[in-house]
């Protein structure tokens, strides 16, 4: 019962958050000086009549709440408006961009998680020794480096061996499927490594402290007293308990991961959502900027909900 109650509460909260974000997305852009029309009507021979006609066409002559209703209605139909720069529907451009971002972020996350679990567990196990000092110092060092700076450093170090720009080599002649995939993977290496290195430090530190916290629990002492060996204690009694904060951590780090991917895609000219966001800032393409922001935020919020439900599965006490 309490579990269903928790589920419903979390679902409602997520929907309210998404509604708040949607509204914020509307209001933030309405405080802009001027509107879309003041820019568009600046064509040679543009008259006040043209501006008025354009304003009518975009619905900007309506009162604010009327515009808000139109915006909400269009959004529900998946209509995110038209990009200023390419005149394509924002939704179509976003589909392509997010399709390109997903493998990058997913590969980065998995790599970071593996690295973080191994180094964090080792650090907690050899607590106070040189392994601990080495892995925590490395973790803090990578935690401290700005994402784009690390990307630039990697280009400097490995730019001769690996491609640093874009997703594909445009000069491959009639590539086979395998050659094309290999090319894509080669292009992915540097951005994925950058993302992974940026987040893994944080993971190491949390895995370490969560392991240490569990290592201090009474049940671990009991297990030791009953004769469980170190490896058995670690895998059977410590890791399962320590997994919970780690799930929460991954959920909380998603926002940072998305932020990191914006910088990484900018550095490596990866044609994904982050790069689209950067370009729309540079070109003042507000519908595009709104669209990317909305989809990024809604996906992070939804993934957070999923992670929360997962942590209830792992530990039902969370729901109470």
């Amino acid at each position, binding site marked *: 019962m309490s579990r269903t109650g928790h589920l419903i509460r979390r679902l409602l909260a997520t929907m309210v958050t998404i509604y708040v974000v949607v509204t914020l997305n509307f209001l933030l852009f309405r405080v802009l000086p001027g509107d879309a029309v003041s820019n568009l009507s600046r064509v040679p021979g543009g008259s006040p009549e043209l501006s008025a006609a354009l304003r009518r066409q975009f619905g900007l002559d309506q009162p604010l709440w009327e515009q808000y209703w139109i915006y909400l209605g269009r959004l529900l139909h998946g209509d995110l408006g038209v990009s200023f720069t390419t005149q394509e529907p924002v939704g179509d451009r976003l589909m392509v961009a997010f399709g390109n971002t997903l493998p990058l972020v997913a590969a980065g996350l998995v790599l970071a998680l593996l690295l973080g679990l191994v180094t964090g567990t080792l650090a907690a196990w050899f607590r106070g020794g040189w392994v601990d000092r080495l892995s925590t110092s490395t973790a803090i060092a990578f935690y401290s480096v700005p994402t784009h700076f690390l990307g630039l450093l990697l280009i400097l170090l490995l730019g001769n061996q690996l491609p640093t720009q874009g997703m594909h080599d445009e000069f491959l002649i009639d590539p086979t499927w395998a050659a094309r995939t290999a090319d894509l993977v080669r292009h992915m290496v540097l951005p994925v490594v950058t993302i992974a290195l940026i987040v893994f430090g944080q993971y190491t530190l949390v895995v370490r402290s969560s392991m240490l916290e569990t290592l201090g629990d009474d049940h671990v002492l009991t297990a030791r007293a009953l004769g469980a060996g170190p490896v058995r204690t670690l895998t059977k009694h*410590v890791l399962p308990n320590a997994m919970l904060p780690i799930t929460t951590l991954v959920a909380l780090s998603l926002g940072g991961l998305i932020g990191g991917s914006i910088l990484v895609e900018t550095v490596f000219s990866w044609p994904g959502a982050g790069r689209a966001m950067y370009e729309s800032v540079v070109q003042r393409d507000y519908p595009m900027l709104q669209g990317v922001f909305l989809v990024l935020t809604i996906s992070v919020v939804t993934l957070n909900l999923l992670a929360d439900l997962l942590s209830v599965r792992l530990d039902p006490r969370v729901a109470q």
Partner: protein
Amino acid sequence: MTSIRSNPRAAAGLGVLGLLVLIALSAGWLAPYDPAAQVGQVFGRPSGSHLLGLDDGGHDVLSLLLYGTRPTLFIGAAAAVVAVLVGGCIGVVAGYFGGWIDGLLMRITDYAIVIPALPLGIVMAAVWGTSIGQLVLVISLLLWTSTARVVRAETASLKNRPYIRRIRGLGASHLRIIGRHLVPQLAPLLSAMAALTIALAIFTETALTFLGLGDPSTVTWGTMIRFAFQRTAMSQGAWWAFAPPGIAVSLVVMCCYWVSQSLEDTLNPRLRVAHLARRYFEVRGS
């Protein structure tokens, strides 16, 4: 305080941060060249007269770096102060009064905390503008949430301690209890959060600046990296144009992290106990 003195990392962190503040104050005096003047060839290599080389405009990188300390530290500190003040107030009020006030404030915090910071910062900066004041406002609006959460939890546990109850029984006003008895207890936590927030604020500033949302009229470490990237320092192999500011940012963030970590360790000594640390076995075994 004793733990900071006995903790070499925290001491080093505080020392480096203090040194950077001194550098910021005396930049005009330390810098060998005028950071705005062209004093050599574009992307000139590091040499005796230009220790860190020259950037895309032939400016001396060392002088830029020294002058850049000022706005970088200012933005970081100002944004952290605003963020910790806002977050602290919300946390204390929510934790102390509880009930529907707590519910409302924490609900708002929950909504704000899940919105990814950098995208929101990009949108706000793109819409509002990118002068230093606006940047500070944007960054602090992104970073208050974790302070609010942590402070609320701590306040909620403090307010039910017997001594606070007794003071309340003696007729102390809410304001007096919060101001005289709760805030001093919260001070170490607040300083730990402030140290961490400075690091995050400087981080966010470099990120926003890199994406073209910084103040173009000020030289910060963030703008140095941006211009190096944008003006082809990479293809020229001019690592000296972006490595010094990048390392400087990393150093500040690391120092802030160490300081905040040692403060947190003092608050949570439980982390020092472990029944399954390697060392524990050795002690046991001998």
